[in-house]
């Protein structure tokens, strides 16, 4: 298995958010986590990626057999974990190209691989940007500065394509997207991540992204725990019935 979460408890500013969460993700699977606001969905993404301030008080997480919680955030990235941010961050004065090349080469160095040259990197970047309908001028602009909400999400997907992780945790990647952008992003997730050796954890409020990215499993996260697990039909049921009925 790729990721095994066992009895995970976590607090933010001493407030318990995750309260005994169990989840197993295998390679080749796409999982969706749905649930009401405040259930701990984004917290799960931050805990798994090692954000400071999110404290694990109990439980364990193994990632490809290694203790994930013992790693620094950049080590988790180098080990193949990618977090698609709900609110991608602006970094003034640093171009996307520079940011991603440095990040990718830092990961490669960590894994003992040779760095990509400028030309090699640009080739990859051009391919990925092209596939997501983003022009190179945008890649040369500072990271997320002046990007619309939709452009920022698209940029997250371009980054995912360039970094090519084995586990992508996508935190509300669908929010703020119009229908056309939703399709582009959905196609991107399928193209980059729908592979036998890769796993996706989609965190979402809505069924609509799941029309484009078919999940193998759907989980309901409520009050810090997984309360139900099912197939794609569970998402439709949630959409119809609401969380209140199903979460209890």
């Amino acid at each position, binding site marked *: 298995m790729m990721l095994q979460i066992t009895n995970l408890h976590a607090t933010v500013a001493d407030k318990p958010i995750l309260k005994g969460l169990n989840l197993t993700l295998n390679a080749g699977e796409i999982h969706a986590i749905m649930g009401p606001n405040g259930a701990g969905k984004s917290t799960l993404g931050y805990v798994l*990626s*090692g*954000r*400071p*301030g999110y404290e694990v008080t109990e439980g364990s997480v193994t990632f490809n057999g290694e203790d994930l919680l013992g790693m*620094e*955030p*950049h080590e*988790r*990235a*180098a080990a193949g974990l*990618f*977090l698609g*941010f709900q609110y*991608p*961050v*602006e*970094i*003034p*004065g*640093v171009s996307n190209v*520079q*940011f*991603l090349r*440095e*990040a*990718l080469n*830092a*990961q490669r160095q*960590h894994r003992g691989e040779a760095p990509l040259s400028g030309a090699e990197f640009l080739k990859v970047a051009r391919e990925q940007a092209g596939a997501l309908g983003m022009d190179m001028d945008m890649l040369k602009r*500072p990271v997320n500065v002046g990007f619309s909400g939709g452009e920022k999400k698209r940029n997250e997907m371009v*980054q995912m394509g360039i*970094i090519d992780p084995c586990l992508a945790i996508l935190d509300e990647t669908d929010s703020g997207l119009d229908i056309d952008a939703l399709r582009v992003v959905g196609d991107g997730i399928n193209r980059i991540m729908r592979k036998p050796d890769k796993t996706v954890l989609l965190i979402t409020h809505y069924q609509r992204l799941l029309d484009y990215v078919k999940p193998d499993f759907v989980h309901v996260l409520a009050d810090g725990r997984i309360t139900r697990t099912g197939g794609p039909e569970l998402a439709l049921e949630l959409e119809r019935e609401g969380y209140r009925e199903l979460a209890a």
Partner: protein
Amino acid sequence: MTDDSAIKDQAAWDAADKVADYEHGWSSDIETDFAPKGLNEDTVRFISAKKNEPEWMLEWRLKAFAMWKTMTPPDWAKLNVPPIDYQDAYYYAAPKAKPKLNSLDEVDPEILRVYEKLGIPIAEQEVLAGVEGARKVAVDAVFDSVSVATTFRAELERAGVIFRSISEAIKEYPELVKKWLGKVVPMHDNYFATLNCAVFSDGTFVYIPEGVRCPMELSTYFRINAENTGQFERTLIVADKGSYVSYLEGCTAPMRDENQLHAAVVELVALDDAEIKYSTVQNWYPGDAEGKGGIYNFVTKRALCQGRNSKVSWTQVETGSAVTWKYPSCVLNGENSVGEFYSVAVTNNYQQADTGTKMIHNGKGSRSTVVSKGISAGHSNNTYRGLVRVAPNAEGVRNFTQCDSLLLGSLCGAHTVPYIEVRNPSAQIEHEATTSKISDDQLFYAMQRGLGQEEAVALIVNGFAKEVLQQLPMEFAVEAQKLLGISLEGSVG
């Protein structure tokens, strides 16, 4: 393990840490000729005699020395500097060498190794280390008190460019030197400039003749090596009508526990339609993490934009020194003359910087741009101090000033002190200032993409400083980017 060996181990670790923090902190064992310690009229005479200077130069120095004795150090900067004992230092230290050098081959190999280790190309076939596609750069290497080599002389002379140590220029081109020395920064200008007039030991002289575009970058590389020694260099650059020159300056010093004084004077003169681009990467030893040691950097830099349409652009990256007191300025006398000041000043640990510029608009239609990026970390204090002055009959003056401060941590300070004196109603003056912190969001975002914490800080800081860094010639920009990261190591966490 016994206590004793534990202590030794700790000492070894500490030493290793120190070296890792400041990579230019080693010193070289080079036989050195010192002036007797202390400062009096004899010291001034000693220096002048060592240089075989003409009588007029000695008189000039002695006049300055007499003046200096009546002066007191400036106290208006936001700096906390313990009193300096001017008698407890050497004012002249020169590597013992053959009496006269005719070519690079005669420079002490030990000194050549110092520059090699620093990555400075003083052999002409070399270019700056590790940079793809670097252009040729002519170098004046100033080691402690004297210039040990200037390169590419022949090639520059074919273009009519004079590139000499100032000691040579005083003897070879006395009329040119006399005409401009002390004309931009007058002898009585300030305490440190006056001291420099009395005891300056070397520096660089550049003259670009009318209509000549200098065929390569010129640079001076300053290295303080000897202990207890002050460095007082003097640079004079004259760009005649319609000429252009780009000049680079770099500096490093060994790590020593005592503070060392560096009091330089730089004078630039730009005549009609001339342009001078002056770039500095200042990386003097900043002192250790507890604030012990480091260079006191009291520097007076000023440009006279004398001619119509003349232009001077100062770009500085200040990462070193325990104390920096420095205001590269432009006196914009020429009609439609242009002054620019681009600055990145980084302070970490207990460093203090009070730096900025003065734009003195006397000429009609003169324009100036000031972009200052201050980055403070640790317990440091970083002040931008800037003056924009518009004279009564300077019509149509414009100035734009932007001061941005970035804070890392909660124990450091950033201060902005703008002075604006406008005596002509047609002037347009803009001043913008921001203060921000590196956000946790930015750091985490960069780390999630694979960057270690220090790499992430370096990336974000370089982005913050980009407008200034892109003003630097390519070779220097690469060095400066690395330096920003190194200077801030250990500042977050």
